[in-house]
């Protein structure tokens, strides 16, 4: 388990309030979340699956006495699941506000190490500039030299049932 601010992942040069975490969700795809939305990076040893769910949302794990749902965002947007690897898997534990105003935790499955980058307002692009699958899952978007990133709308992702999420596509 790694609390972010002791891992060295955070670049000391980032003093700006406007910053985002880049989360690799496949070898070629990455998404972003706000600087303060990502709380921890966790290596998950044991995931459990619930029955009756699509593959992108069927898993969860116990963490600090909470049951944390794990979303495979890559599987959600591509409908293709990357085969699970043996051993630990990395996940970003995020916090979001549910519709009742409470704070809840969720996890996003990672396929690489997240990094915190500064973001300037001049980097903003319209969500509609992203590919179609992100239009209802992103609350904002920005670009840098390597491409455009959707900034995930975490409440839309985690505070909806799988049936509602799938109907967005």
């Amino acid at each position, binding site marked *: 388990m790694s609390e972010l601010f002791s891992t060295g992942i955070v670049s000391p040069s980032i003093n700006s309030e406007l910053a985002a975490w880049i989360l690799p969700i496949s070898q070629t795809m990455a998404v972003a979340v706000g600087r303060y939305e990502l709380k921890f990076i966790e290596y998950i040893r*044991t995931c*459990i*699956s*619930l*029955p*009756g*769910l699509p593959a992108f*949302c*069927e898993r*969860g794990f*116990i963490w600090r*006495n*909470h*049951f944390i*749902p794990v*979303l495979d965002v890559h599987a959600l947007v591509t409908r293709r699941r990357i085969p699970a690897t043996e051993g630990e898997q990395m996940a970003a534990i995020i916090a979001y506000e*549910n519709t009742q105003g409470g704070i*809840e935790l*969720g996890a996003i499955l990672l396929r690489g190490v997240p990094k915190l980058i500064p973001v300037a307002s001049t980097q903003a692009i319209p969500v509609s500039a992203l590919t179609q699958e992100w239009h209802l899952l992103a609350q904002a978007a920005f670009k840098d030299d390597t491409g455009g990133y959707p900034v995930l709308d975490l409440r839309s*992702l*985690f*505070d*909806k*049932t*799988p*049936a509602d*999420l799938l109907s967005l596509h």
Partner: protein
Amino acid sequence: MKLVEKYIPSTAASLSANSLALLSFDEFTFLVPGEDVLSLLPIQKIDAAVASNSCGLVEYNGHSVPVFSVNKALQLQSSKKDSHSVIAILNYQSMWFSLACNSLAKCEIGNLQLFRVPTCMSSRKQPFSQVAIVGDKAACLTNSAELWKLLHLRGAVGATISPTLIRAHEGY
């Protein structure tokens, strides 16, 4: 303290109101109140299916009871799996139905920590809203009423209890 005890037919009466039956399937388990479980029969007792959505019938107390087999997607299967070794007979308001499963064990409620199923893992077709972890698997807390609802959603049984349904069931 031992969390789970192997449940065998001769101990059927030992499933009290405070105990749960842990029905194991290949990739998940259901926790059902002990009082909802009438009996446990060996899978060899099963007769061939005579209706869609069930995988056979089993004789219990002079009645033919439908046997259902569910997969990980909670869909009803027309045949049992090779890993199924027992049939759990369940009672919902005097309606009897059964599930084919791998094994059944006894589990004490007080030894479990239950977690609410998060919204992003919820489905109206799930017969549960709380889970516990038993071993390395999710143990989904359900009951015969919720399982009956699942069977209804899958088109295997009627929604409510009525004399017609009871008669239909008895002649199933």
